[in-house]
């Protein structure tokens, strides 16, 4: 059973067992598809077989004739949506096809199997046009976006990069690439849509119930009060459930056409490779210049990414380079190719994850070029203030992470010569990389606190738990905010009937929802004191944090990896990784450790395995299942040691915490790549590091 005990005021920091653990392991916690609804229908989508063109004819007669088929929906009979300004959500609104795998219709039937069978009986003719689905650096149509994801400026310039780089004593100019990757949470994207008497209820697998409500209400022209989104338990997201995608709109369209009957729509694993977001491939040129002592004088990071022609998503791959190290001059740019492809979106640490692979690989190469230990080289270029804002850091303990990690990993005894250590057939090496993630803030959360008598408090906020442990951590935060034990807190999250909450994205969940709960608790005690009456209630919004004007706020970390590479076959094994983090106060040591281990495993996966292979002839991902799109198995993950620095940061928020959901994937891939280089003497700059890229050894 979960441990719901502890003295008042001391819940934050304890490794509380997951409050929802028993429900999850006994199957009582309902995921989107599992909410009980009366006599549901099942939706199976029709997807385009071409990457660009228009539909000229649809013959659904055989599908419609199949017993059990209720309706075949296409652009010819789908209701018009109220707002089609966002083309990703303009589902079944025209005959145009913008990418392969786009939803062009749906079959709704009494069973899933009937719907799927009928979907294959629908005949579709197209007028196909030539498509273009391949990102290359030498394209002549790269454009400058107005801004990049998360609202960062597209380009930045400090000092005179060209002059400083030209005169630098040591120089590096290399290009690093990362492939298209797909988020692949275990629970597929799912919607159960019920349209009844003008009210729409969505049981949704999402990272934000309220943001889904806002989008759906706008697209369908509904009052937000008429849309209810329910998402108490979510089986992972990694960003792909952060913004709603076309699948949610398609399910709601079907529900609108068949009022009263619930529509169930869960994507298959293969369908998740075509329409619910992905990480753009990146091509990143990095130039570094340093003086003889290894002080950086010039840093430039030029990132090229792709987006869909129908919607812009410009991944901010070069932003971490703007603040990571001290330099006299710096330039960062982002260029985008708009292609006939599905819309890219958030995937765990969009921007930082691919960007820090490039920067931290380049830092390793530059340390070697300067004749310095890579840790010493980083410490030598540690900035005093945040270069981007000119503000001091609220806390920056990167150096402490590097030093503590070096101690735990056993870095001192390392011979820096590459390919110097061999154990039997294995070439053995080690690598290091830094990590960072910003403390983002998202506005608009509200929390409600109500005294329910007998010492118990209801705490309500529409927050999301996508498997990270929010049910548990917000309970701990609420307990400390109210000065009671965790057993006195009755938390409710994951539903738009609760006060609105911001999306679980940008590692902001605990920062925003926790701050809001703290504020609600403060106001509650102010109004109702320590001995409230049953039914006393307060609702409060997220307080401003004036300290954001005074401090730059980022989390930091350092990774160490050991690589073993088979000298004959170039198979790579990573027997151990060490991660040390400086992320403010840890709310729950157990769930935090899981986030770090998960993030580092995903970094390992990014380094060695993940790659969505697009067939340029057809524009689709060919390895669209887990047999061929590899993520590590248990046998691929060795020892992962995680620890953190005790970091007091009074400025970030009332808990003193920084977001930890994404930092684990930032830079961990570079630590692996740097270790592989140290083991073999072969530098692979194009992820993933597959054996064929290492040969000849």
């Amino acid at each position, binding site marked *: 059973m979960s441990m719901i005990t502890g003295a008042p005021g001391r819940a934050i920091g304890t490794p509380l067992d997951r409050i929802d653990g028993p429900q999850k392991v006994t199957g009582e916690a309902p995921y989107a598809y599992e909410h009980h609804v009366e006599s549901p229908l099942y939706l199976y989508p029709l997807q385009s077989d071409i990457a660009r063109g228009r539909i000229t004819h649809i013959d659904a007669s055989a599908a419609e004739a199949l017993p059990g088929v209720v309706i075949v929906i296409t652009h010819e009979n789908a209701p018009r949506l109220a707002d089609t300004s966002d083309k990703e959500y303009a589902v079944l609104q025209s005959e145009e096809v913008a990418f392969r795998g786009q939803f062009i219709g749906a079959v709704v039937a009494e069973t899933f199997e009937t719907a*799927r069978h009928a979907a294959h009986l629908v005949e579709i003719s197209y007028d196909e046009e030539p498509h273009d689905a391949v990102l290359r650096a030498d394209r002549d149509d790269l454009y400058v976006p107005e801004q990049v994801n998360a609202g960062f400026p597209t380009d930045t310039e400090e000092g005179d990069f060209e002059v400083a780089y030209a005169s630098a004593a040591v120089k590096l100019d290399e290009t690093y690439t990362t492939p298209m990757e797909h988020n692949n949470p275990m629970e597929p994207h799912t919607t159960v849509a019920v349209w009844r008497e003008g009210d729409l209820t969505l049981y949704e697998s999402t990272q934000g119930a309220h943001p889904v409500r806002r989008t759906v209400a706008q697209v369908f022209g509904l009052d937000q009060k008429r849309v209810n989104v329910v998402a108490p338990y979510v089986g992972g997201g990694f960003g792909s459930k952060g913004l709603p995608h076309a699948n949610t709109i398609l399910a709601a369209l079907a529900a609108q056409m068949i009022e009263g009957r619930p529509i169930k729509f869960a994507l298959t694993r293969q369908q998740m490779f075509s329409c619910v977001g992905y990480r753009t491939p990146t091509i990143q040129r990095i130039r570094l210049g340093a003086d003889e002592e290894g002080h950086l004088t010039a840093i430039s990071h030029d990132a090229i990414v792709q987006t869909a022609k129908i919607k812009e998503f410009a991944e901010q791959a070069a932003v971490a380079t703007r603040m990571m190290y001290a330099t006299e001059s710096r330039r960062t740019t982002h260029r985008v190719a708009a292609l006939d492809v599905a819309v890219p979106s958030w995937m765990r640490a969009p921007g930082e994850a691919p960007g820090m692979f490039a920067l931290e690989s380049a830092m390793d190469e530059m340390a070697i070029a300067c004749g310095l230990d890579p840790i010493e080289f980083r410490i030598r270029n540690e900035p005093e203030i945040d270069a981007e804002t000119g503000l001091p850091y609220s806390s920056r303990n990167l150096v402490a992470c590097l030093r503590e990690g070096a101690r735990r990993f056993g870095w001192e005894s390392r011979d820096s010569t590459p390919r110097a250590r061999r154990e039997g057939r294995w070439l053995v090496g080690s690598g290091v990389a830094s990590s960072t993630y910003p403390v983002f803030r998202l506005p608009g959360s509200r929390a409600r606190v109500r005294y329910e008598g007998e010492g118990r408090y209801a705490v309500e906020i529409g927050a999301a738990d996508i498997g990270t442990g929010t049910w548990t951590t917000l309970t701990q935060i609420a307990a400390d905010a109210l000065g009671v034990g965790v057993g006195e807190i009755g938390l409710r999250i994951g539903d738009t009937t609760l006060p609105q909450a911001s999306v679980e994205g940008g590692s902001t969940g605990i920062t925003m929802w926790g701050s809001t709960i703290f504020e609600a608790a403060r106001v509650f005690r102010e109004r109702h004191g320590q001995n409230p009456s049953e039914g006393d209630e307060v609702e409060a919004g997220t307080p401003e944090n004036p300290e954001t004007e005074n401090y730059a706020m980022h989390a930091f970390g350092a990774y160490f990896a050991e690589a073993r590479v088979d000298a004959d076959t170039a*198979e790579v094994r990573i027997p151990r990784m060490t991660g040390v983090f400086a992320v403010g106060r840890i709310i729950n040591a157990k769930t935090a450790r899981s986030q770090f281990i998960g993030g580092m495993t995903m970094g390992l996966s990014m380094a060695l*395995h993940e790659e969505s292979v697009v067939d340029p002839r057809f524009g689709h991902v060919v390895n669209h299942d887990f047999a*061929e799109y590899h993520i590590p198995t248990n*046998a*691929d993950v060795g020892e992962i040691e995680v620890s953190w620095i005790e970091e007091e940061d009074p400025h970030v928020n009332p808990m003193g915490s920084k977001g930890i959901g994404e930092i684990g994937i930032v830079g961990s891939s570079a630590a692996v790549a740097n270790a592989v280089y140290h083991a073999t003497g072969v530098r692979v700059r194009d992820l993933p590091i597959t054996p*064929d890229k290492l040969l000849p050894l």
Partner: protein
Amino acid sequence: MEFLQPATWREALEAKSAHHEAVPIFGGTDVMVEMNFDRRRPGYVLDLTRVPEIQVWERENGKFRVGAGVTYTRIITDLKNELPALAMASRTVGSPQIRNRGTVGGNLGTSSPAGDALPPLYASDAEVELASVEGIRRVPVGEFVTGPKRNVLRREELIWGFIIPEAEGPQQYAKIGTRNAMVIAVCSFGLALHPARRKVGTCIGSAAPTPVRAKEAEEFIEGVLAEGDLWETRGAISEAALRRFGEMVEMSARPISDVRGTAEYRRRAVGVLARRTLSWAWAEYRDGR
């Protein structure tokens, strides 16, 4: 879709005779994937999981007659000493759950060049036993598989199982994948020493349209062993001979490039696996095992 569920082997053969298009299923680790991906939609599925006769193995004149319904897990637990290469290959298949369901019979039916169980069958000159209501026939495994996912099984036939000699010497199987478990082979290699016959059996997996024996390499190393009287003396195979053996295996491969690996990598890697498996097996032989 009709679901046929015979209770005996005779009923299964009759069902297949009556419905040639029926797709036999046992573990379903290939068939269900094909159906779920809608690559095939058979009119009949012939469930063999209730047929007891194919879920047994027996000794028959120094050979093992193994039913098509014997799972990888049972091969690993029951036959690890008698059929070591096949047991090693079985350990590399999928996950424990898949090994509990999947069968060598299914691997034969699918006839993929990447089928993990196939190289050990080739290296030990196994035969496939095919049956119909008319009778049975035995086909050498190398003649059974004719191309990628193609074989000589007739439409009225079912695979009863396979016949494989008990190991009379050390055997090895090695596989390269792009991760450590649940992985389709980038390439693989099976090797069996047959000291009584003074023969070496080999087979390359996943680097040609079918599993292929490296005949020239086999003859080469058999020559080396005979010339040096190494079978009798249990002396070491020279580094040069091991290397040449690997090179000759590379020459027998006809790999393609795909998402799992490049042709160049596959060719090189099967050479490495050949060298390794031979040196491991020969070291065992020298130790008197």
